[in-house]
């Protein structure tokens, strides 16, 4: 009796079991279709296809060969064996531009470096049931790329036959929000370039658009800045634990070829203690103790923003870094400024006395100086929410604000008229729930307990408490990994597949059902694992093979 119940449940959810994020329009059939052994992807109608599109096509073909993912049902697809024997075979996928597109195509990389409102990610995808050519059409190269990513998720393996049982397939797809990101902190602990590249791959598989790279912080300065070589020479954890300018270019181009813009962040004026190793004159209260008085976490130390010299230093540092990134966006941080640190800093007090400025006025002129360098370089500044909510600063209207302290703060930022990215700790912080990491504190829990499950992130409402006009200021959101307790050894398991939850939320829009989503998320996790990303098991395999059966309502 229960067996038949299981079958009904399985039939109800397996129709779109593979796709993540869920396309905005999708129809599938029940016909089996196998991939021909000479299957190829045809770009013949595209004149001068850009190299990064050709590379994406090669990667897609490679995944079709190597994914070898068995269907996530109890018999791992064995029951399809009979129908696959008689199935038509698909020998071609044809890529072409829609009629709205003209001229030589731009590259994926060029398109992701464009302003976020100009990017076009939509595509249509068809897979006929009779074996005639599948198609992907788009108005942009980036759109073709997103379509390829979807195509790569359609297929399963049974005894070396690559197949789908859901033909014909018709998809019309485009994202609800243009900013879908993941943030990595490479300063608390260092991550090798290969870890970042692997993360970029996984991000591209779930159609994320932005790698928010929190490059430096108070603990280390791993970024090589040719104009200021002492910063990494003295501030990195070791000479091999540095991102050279070549590394940075490698990361940028690897990301761009996968439809991902790199948003660099040089957090200022707080979170900068390590700069004192090279430039002690620019840092207030370096290493002051007890650290808990002068910083949110050790070590204490912040830029002397009341100083004109420090302001100039910071502006030229930001300019130097920013000039090496092709994207339109640059974050100057701005979170967790500690005022006690400045109260005990004599040079800061002297500067304030000399100018008659309050600390806030000094911060305002510092921020204007730093931001104007970015604006002059054609960049849009990005800041953390305190710069808008805690201080009265003069910021360009174009500034994008990241909401992190609480999801409850988003409406207030929107009310001030700024565009915003949803990065709330109460939904999207991947590090929460791993216990206190500060020493000599046995019963301390994570400050942002509890752990944020994928289910919680998935049910986030990006426009809660906003008017329709305010809701338009939300450009998307991101999952974030602060790395006090992370390193290469747990990067993949702490990030994947959880971070995929926001990728779907901001592509497909809010309101998704976690029970419907879970089997697809299992699928993504298993496919990631096949592709070498160590995504974790969300449930016992017993549950992953039986959609819905391990629900609380089952």
């Amino acid at each position: 009796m229960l067996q038949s119940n299981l079958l009904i449940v399985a039939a109800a959810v397996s129709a779109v079991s593979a796709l993540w994020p869920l396309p905005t329009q999708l129809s599938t059939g029940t016909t089996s279709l196998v991939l021909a052994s000479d299957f190829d992807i045809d770009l013949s109608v595209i004149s001068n296809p850009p190299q990064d599109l050709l590379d994406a096509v090669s990667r897609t073909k490679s995944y079709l060969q190597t994914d070898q993912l068995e269907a996530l049902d109890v018999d791992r697809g064995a029951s399809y064996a009979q129908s696959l024997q008689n199935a038509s075979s698909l020998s071609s996928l044809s890529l072409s531009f829609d009629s709205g597109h003209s001229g030589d195509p731009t590259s994926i990389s060029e398109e992701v470096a464009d302003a976020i409102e100009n990017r076009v990610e939509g595509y249509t995808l068809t897979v006929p049931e009779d074996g005639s050519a599948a198609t992907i059409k788009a108005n942009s190269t980036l759109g073709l790329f997103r379509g390829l990513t979807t195509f790569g998720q359609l297929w399963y393996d049974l005894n070396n036959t690559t197949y789908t049982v859901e033909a014909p397939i018709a998809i019309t797809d485009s994202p609800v929000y243009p900013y879908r990101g993941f943030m990595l902190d490479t300063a608390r602990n260092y991550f090798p370039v290969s870890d970042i590249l692997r993360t970029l791959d996984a991000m591209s598989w779930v159609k994320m658009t932005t790698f928010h790279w929190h490059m430096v912080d108070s603990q280390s300065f791993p970024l090589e800045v040719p104009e200021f070589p002492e910063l990494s020479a003295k501030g990195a954890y070791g000479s091999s634990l540095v991102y050279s300018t070549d590394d940075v270019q490698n990361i940028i181009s690897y990301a761009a070829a996968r439809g991902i813009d790199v948003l660099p962040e040089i957090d200022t004026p707080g979170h900068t203690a390590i700069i004192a190793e090279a430039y002690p004159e620019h840092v207030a209260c370096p290493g002051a103790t007890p650290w808990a008085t002068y910083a949110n976490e050790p070590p204490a130390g912040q830029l002397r923003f009341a100083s004109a010299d420090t302001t100039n230093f910071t502006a030229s540092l930001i300019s130097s870094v920013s000039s090496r990134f092709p994207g339109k966006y640059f974050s100057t941080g701005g979170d967790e400024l500690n005022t006690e640190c400045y109260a005990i800093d004599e040079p800061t007090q002297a500067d304030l006395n000399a100018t008659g400025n309050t600390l806030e006025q000094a911060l305002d002129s510092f921020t204007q100086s730093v931001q104007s360098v970015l604006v002059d370089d054609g960049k849009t500044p990005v800041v953390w929410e305190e710069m808008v909510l805690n201080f009265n600063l003069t910021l360009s209207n174009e500034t994008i604000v990241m909401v992190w302290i609480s999801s409850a703060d988003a409406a207030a930022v929107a009310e001030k008229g700024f565009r915003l990215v949803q990065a709330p700790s109460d939904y999207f912080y991947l590090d929460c729930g791993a216990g206190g990491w500060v020493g000599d504190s046995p019963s301390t829990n994570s400050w942002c307990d509890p752990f944020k499950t994928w289910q919680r992130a998935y049910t986030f409402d990006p426009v809660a408490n906003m008017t329709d006009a305010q809701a338009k200021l939300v450009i998307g959101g991101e999952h974030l990994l602060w790395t006090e307790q992370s390193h290469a050894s747990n990067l993949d398991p702490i990030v994947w597949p959880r971070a995929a939850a926001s990728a779907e939320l901001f592509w497909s829009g809010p309101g998704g059902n976690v029970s419907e989503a879970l089997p697809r998320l299992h699928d993504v996790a298993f496919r990631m694992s096949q592709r070498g990303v160590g995504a974790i098991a969300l449930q016992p395999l017993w549950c992953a093979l039986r959609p819905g059966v391990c629900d609380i309502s089952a």
Partner: protein
Amino acid sequence: MFPRLASPALIFTLIPRCLGIWPIPRSLESGNQIIKLSSSFDISINFTHPPQDLLDAVARTKQAIQTDQLGRLVVGRGSTDSQAFGSANTFHTLVLALDHDAPTPRPIATEAVVGLDTRDESYSLSVPLDGSAGVVSANTTLGLLRGLSTFEQLWYTFDGMIYTNYAPLTIAKDFPAYIYRGFMLDTARNFFSVSDIKRTLDAMYLVKINTFHWHITDSQSWPIQIAQFPELARAGAYSVDQTFTPEDIQDVVSYAGERGIDVLIEIDTPGHTAIVGASHPDYVACYLSEWITFAGEPPAGQLRLVDPVVANFTADVLSAVAKTLPSTMFSTGGDELDTACYSADAPTQMNLNETGRTLFDALDDFTATTHGALHALGKTTVVWEEMVLEYNTTTLRNDTIVMVWISSDDAAAVVQKGFRIVHAPSNYFYLDCGAGEWIGNDPTGNSWCDPFKTWQESYTFDPLANISSGQESLVLGGEQLLWTEQSGPENLDSIVWPRAASSAEVFWTGDTLPDGFNRVQNISEALPRLHDVRYRMVQRGIKAIRLQPEWCALRPQACDG
């Protein structure tokens, strides 16, 4: 650049000079002089007929010292140490000696599985400053192995030079405060390969954990192949590839034994057995019924314990596995029996009516059968705490070992009943806690045993809390545990290490550190050593996580609260 938190004098008294040793020996005198390891360094054995697994252990130690390549965890990673290399003595030889001449010393693997009351892990170790030979001496090859694991942790590498800065060093006598120091892995919720298990055993060896509690089956899958009952794994494993063959089991057992680790296999009964229904549906009550009513987690299904046929089948299955294992211990589980499942099961109710027994009477009979079979094989049976505290099982033999898991508060009650216990309390030692709800369609659900159990929390565990005086000897030790609803090979290392080393020191070193300080009050002293063993694990291919930013790891105490 950054001033330290405490004054230098304070730091000096709080941090033993041997930052690297975990667990910290019970007696320890060390200097702060550097000696270099000779490029022709060798370990010699001064007795005849050394067993092969001791020779293998020696070879592994020599190899590890060469390949660890661990830079000392200080700013500069040892660059200041290098200034003393020129004048430092060179260490050429470590001698292994047995305190009592035995004509044929027994293999480590044999010593590792002898009864808990006769197991001898003690050793002494000296590393002189003048370059003369160091000595590890012990009563047993197992003790020598423990000495080797300590010796391995003395060495750092800077610029190609292998050295220690803890010479001269004397450990007059080191021996464990508790004889049971374990780690439990559940290989049924999700599968782990033999290589995953071996890597885990390597890490366990490094911190002197001596028992691998292998929770090998559960309701979700039956990965163990049993020659006499091939249908269990055929129908119950996740796939043919996700099984442990008899050869795999022997492989794990010998690998563990050579590293001084006893393998305690658990086949959890009569609950946690739904998967038996895949091959024997008649043996399982409420098989795949609504889980929320009939089980702690999906899927529902428990052995029909009232049925003598099922009891005999279970005894035969347990015996078939137990008789292939050298350990004196075998666990029959016994946790989380769901009585609603049996209330709703018509055959169970019919049987109870016919025989006039209560469910717990029947459980007594079932347990007498299964434990009787194991006792006939000379095994000591191990059970979860409910068998004693909730089901009032009366047929448990006095020497039964009881694992306390529900709460640390339950330990005293079990001891009061006169049973030996292993501490495995969820509120201190469950490694899976705090990772959120894994049950589907429950967006606001959290981990049932929130919050996450930090290494610091585990480290402050008191094994003798509320234990009556005179009954302390009933406390055998303890273990950290990984239930794997949300774990697989991808996060095994990162969820277990270095946290599980925490209990390894609790139960080896006991309450008092070698400098006389109380362990619980000195977690600040422990952290730099735990960083050290964590970094060493990483050098050995174990993906232990960072406990703090590296900035903190290089500056002891600077990131204390």
